[in-house]
């Protein structure tokens, strides 16, 4: 066991993947010499060389497109997008090419491209630097979409994503980059990439979340516990595919469910969850599935973001309301 920050765990995971497979490449703006704006690729260019850790021009569409071309010829590129909001110039390539090449080639080609995106707010940044664009990708068939929430998962999930034969959009909770935890770097006996995990067992209500909001949910669960409510928190980890079995098993027991994410609630990932849970657990539900998330506005400036981000109070309020139905 070693204690690592989430950022360092990603760095170690990338390093391991590069050690294990010479076809793994890293590409992005300032990922080499500078080690990336969040230093996630720190030291990798020094150790693996400029041909495997590639500093690119400022051209997201070009970077992702080039990565696709490399993947078509057997490489496993890992692309870094500096901030959530900068992925949009590349969305064309991701949606129109990356997600569709397997179908077009009738399964003849694999697209092992990982697009790493630091996501979410809470670091006092502004629009483009604090967004949660996951549903643009979960809505697109052909992409796998995952979100890590803690150092151990960061370490394993990045390696599992790189090993995936399908493209993976990999969300990193940027405000949790500096969170520390024990990581077992000796084992490869990991939870499967697309499995959800119960991170805190409970009996009264199920709280579903992923990425940066998981920690907030855990804090809310502790607070609810002090008030005598037993909250089960599930870290979904994978958004597409979705591990619906773990989710429904929990909601079947608790009969109540709250979904928490930073992205806007309207048309957010919570809508998919609410629909599926309703379909599967209709007779078990004591209350509708409630959602806590961002608002339908552009991400606000730093002075306002505390109001925008789901916090303890808003989560607890939703939990309370599931008991009032």
């Amino acid at each position, binding site marked *: 066991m070693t204690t690592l920050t989430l950022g360092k765990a990603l760095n170690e995971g990338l390093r391991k993947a590069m050690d294990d497979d010479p076809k793994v490449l890293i590409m992005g703006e300032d990922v080499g010499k500078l080690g990336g704006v969040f230093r996630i690729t720190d030291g990798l260019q020094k150790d693996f060389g400029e041909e495997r850790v590639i500093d690119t021009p400022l051209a997201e569409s070009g970077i992702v497109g080039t990565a696709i071309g490399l993947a078509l010829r057997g490489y496993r590129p890992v692309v870094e997008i500096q901030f959530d909001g900068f992925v949009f110039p590349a969305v064309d390539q991701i949606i129109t090419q990356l997600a569709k090449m397997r179908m077009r080639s009738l399964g003849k080609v694999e697209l092992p491209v990982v697009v790493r995106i630091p996501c979410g707010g809470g670091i006092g940044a502004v629009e483009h630097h604090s967004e949660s664009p996951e549903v643009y990708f979960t809505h697109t068939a052909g992409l796998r979409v995952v979100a890590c929430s803690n150092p151990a998962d960061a370490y394993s999930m990045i390696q599992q994503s790189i090993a995936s034969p399908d493209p993976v959009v990999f969300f990193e909770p940027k405000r949790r980059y500096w969170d520390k935890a024990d990581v077992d770097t000796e084992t490869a006996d990991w939870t499967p990439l697309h499995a959800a995990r119960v991170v805190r067992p409970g009996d009264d209500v199920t709280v579903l979340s992923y990425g940066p909001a998981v920690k907030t949910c855990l804090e809310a669960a502790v607070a609810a516990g002090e008030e005598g409510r037993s909250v089960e928190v599930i870290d979904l980890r994978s958004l597409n595919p979705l591990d619906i079995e773990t989710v429904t098993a929990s909601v079947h027991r608790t009969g109540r469910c709250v979904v928490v994410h930073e992205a806007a609630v309207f048309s957010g990932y919570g809508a998919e969850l609410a629909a599926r849970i309703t379909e599967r657990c209709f007779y078990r539900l004591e209350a509708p599935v409630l959602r806590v998330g961002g608002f339908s506005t552009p991400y606000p400036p730093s*002075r306002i973001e505390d*109001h925008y981000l789901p916090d303890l109070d*808003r989560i607890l309020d939703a939990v309370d309301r599931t008991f009032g139905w």
Partner: protein
Amino acid sequence: MAETPTRSAARSAGEAAPARARRSRGPRTPRPGPGLPQPPDTAGAEAPDTAVPAAPDTAGTLVGFYRQMLLVRRFEERAARAYTEAKIGGYCHLNLGEEATVVGLMAALRPTDYLFTNYREHGYALAKGIGADRVMAELYGRSTGVSKGWGGSMHLFDAEARLLGGYGIVGGQVPLAAGAALAVSYKGGDDVVMCQMGDGTTAIGGFHEALNIAALWDLPAVFVVVNNGLGMGTAVERSAAEPELWKRGAAYRMASARVDGTDVVAVRDAARLAVERARSESRPYLLEAVSPRLKGHSVVDPARYRSKEEKDALKDADPVARTARRLADAGILSPEDRDRIDAEVTAEVEAAAAFADASPQPDVSTLFDYTYATPVAGEQRRLPADPVFRS
């Protein structure tokens, strides 16, 4: 066969035919002639085809430039301090080292001309005539700021001053500027649209798409690439296959030139030529201003990727010091003048910071005020779970 709406069809159906006399299409004749003033290490540029109006600058004009440059300098230094004191949230990119470029460019515009910039735009806002207090208040995120605190450092917007935005997405502003220039062309009048960006921006698709459109449609747009040698930590030579960025205009048969961005008069002259060409002939222009970035990419960047030699060399390139020296040599800026001007702009900047600090934060309840023009059915304005919004 059904008519596909085309641009020309849309134009004839639109409110007004273009009032500006449009140049006929077709290959352009190369225009030989003397180049613009060049910094020593730069290649020649496509020649100007109109003589620069040659009225010599008065001492007042030159000292005025210096004053504005120093205002930008002191403003940015003050902003950096406020940022480290956590008065400013988000990211904060400064024009330190680009003062001559900023002031020279803005001096070539009329107040009625439009401006688009990237996120490194505080100086442009000041030089476009927006008060230091309102710009500083925006950086502080206060409701007295140019964008009522909703824009912040990177997204200054002031329709009245015709600053059509600072843009946080690299290259985001470039096609928009072409569109604003097309609007000028449709509506008539002789406004010009200037679009500022950095060197790194010339690598992104939107830059090329917009320049092609602007040249193809003869738009009155001046694209200015401020080449500070770096896009974050990446040197131009490592990001541009043609590091002489002005030459990219050739791909679109767009007149283009490079100018020493530390020389305020040279910048003003080069920009004036570009602007007047856009104004009188409705033709776009690509101007590259070579100008150092004295500090990190943003306030939080220690710029460790720069060697000590590089950092030392920057001192000689400082345009503010350089201008002061020049004016002193020409006998139009005495040490006393210099100190007085410094005291004045410093006071202005301090007052702006005090104003910002004393201004109220935007009210959270206004969060929903600016997303849509009218309420939208199904719009998630309030959630029952939000105690903040309950009262």
